[in-house]
């Protein structure tokens, strides 16, 4: 028997020792690793994401919870059964060409990984062609574009256009984000979604994968 509620609560309270203790106890009780991962940990990070969105949890706490999550995934991954994937989808995330900001992008990457997606964080100052290449190479279902400057927002449109021209538009969902970015801008450039923070970005990505 596993007390998934206790696990999610401990994760949300950033009590790493308790989470690991509960995970190990559940494994000892023959609870499948896949269930622990999804119902104890990913579920917990979903709550963290919501609290972040609501302003009830702050970046340092989210980082702590994600660190705990990462440490538990290390324990659980080798114990997953054949065919059971820890991943709900492949995501490429990067800051567009001309822009070097990465803090928000890294938070989004971390939240999406904690939500069970495989995230390829390809860095900053990424040209449209590079995004296209990475989508192909990594067989991505979602690509996330970040920009923090009004001067680099037009590069988001160029990147969307490059994805269209490459014939990949139907294969991938495009999300955009960053302080000056808005839903209106997202609609204007033909993106599939916009989120204002890491918590809601992770939630949106999950829904786009379904």
């Amino acid at each position, binding site marked *: 028997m596993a007390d998934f509620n206790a696990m999610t609560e401990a994760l949300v309270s950033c009590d790493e020792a308790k989470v690991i203790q509960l995970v190990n106890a559940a494994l000892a009780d023959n609870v499948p690793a896949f269930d622990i991962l999804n119902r104890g940990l990913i579920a917990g990070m979903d709550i963290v994401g919501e609290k972040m969105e609501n302003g009830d949890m702050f970046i340092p706490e989210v980082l702590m919870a994600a660190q705990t999550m990462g440490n538990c995934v290390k324990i659980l991954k080798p114990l997953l059964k054949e065919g059971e994937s820890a991943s709900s989808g492949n995501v490429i995330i990067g800051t567009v060409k001309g822009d070097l*900001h990465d803090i928000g992008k890294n938070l989004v990457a971390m939240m999406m990984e904690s939500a069970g997606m495989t995230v390829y964080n390809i860095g900053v100052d990424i040209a449209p062609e590079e995004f296209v290449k990475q989508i192909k190479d990594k067989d991505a279902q979602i690509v996330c574009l970040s920009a923090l400057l009004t001067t680099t927002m037009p590069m988001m449109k160029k990147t969307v256009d490059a994805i269209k021209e490459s014939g990949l538009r139907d294969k991938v969902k495009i999300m955009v984000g960053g302080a000056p970015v808005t839903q209106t801008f997202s609609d204007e450039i033909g993106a599939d979604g916009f989120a204002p923070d890491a918590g809601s970005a992770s939630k949106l990505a999950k829904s786009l994968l379904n």
Partner: protein
Amino acid sequence: MFEVIGERINTSRKNVQAAVADRNAEYIIDDVKKQQAAGAHYIDVNAGARIGHEVEDMRWLINTIEPIATVPLCLDSPDPALLEMAFQMVNKSPMINSISLEKERFDAMIPFLTGKECKVIALCMDDAGMPASSDNILGRATRLVEALNKIGIKTENIYIDPLVQPISTDITKGVMVLNAVRAIKAKFPQVHISGGLSNISYGLPQRKVINRTFITLMMDSGMDSAIIDPLDPKIMATIKTADMLLGNDNFCGNYLRGVRAGTIES
């Protein structure tokens, strides 16, 4: 003397953007006058948020502000053509915000700045991304000072921005920039240090107390100017008080004037 660069005329601020879109000169003039009365030494002007309108917006803003400006303007844009236009429109020698070591930006700004009599804010940013250590910041600052000296900009006209990063993402980011500022001032005693403060508190609650406390630590390290809201009485009071504590206020005169005027209180 600590120099305040008033940050309010920025089209990324909702009310300012609306005033610029409506060409509401009264709103802009009123705001600039208030910033000047509150003790701003420069008025920053940034028209970047309305994409596609930056040139006309900047032209209109300067035409509106210049006649009532009692202090120099700080021209805030990454576009050297726009800066050239703005430069020609102002009477008092302006501050230019900004140059950095990012190749495209650097290559565009150096010709613009060559031979000009002006102050310039120099960002410790290069194509490698956010600085990772105090030494990294010092290295970038050194390259900036040397490059600007080479084109005739004196060290005392350079305002280095050491790039404050959020403490919420890494608890060492405060000390990293404080140590960098100390090192930069030790190497270049004539250089100024400036920048915005709000990055330090990004992602944390009760940001203003963080910003206020941080500015006193930065001032002790050598920061002698900042891009802030002069109409925020608490931060202005903090700056005056810290300035006094650091020995820059004869007979505590400014501090006492502030208390009597009601702008400094516990």
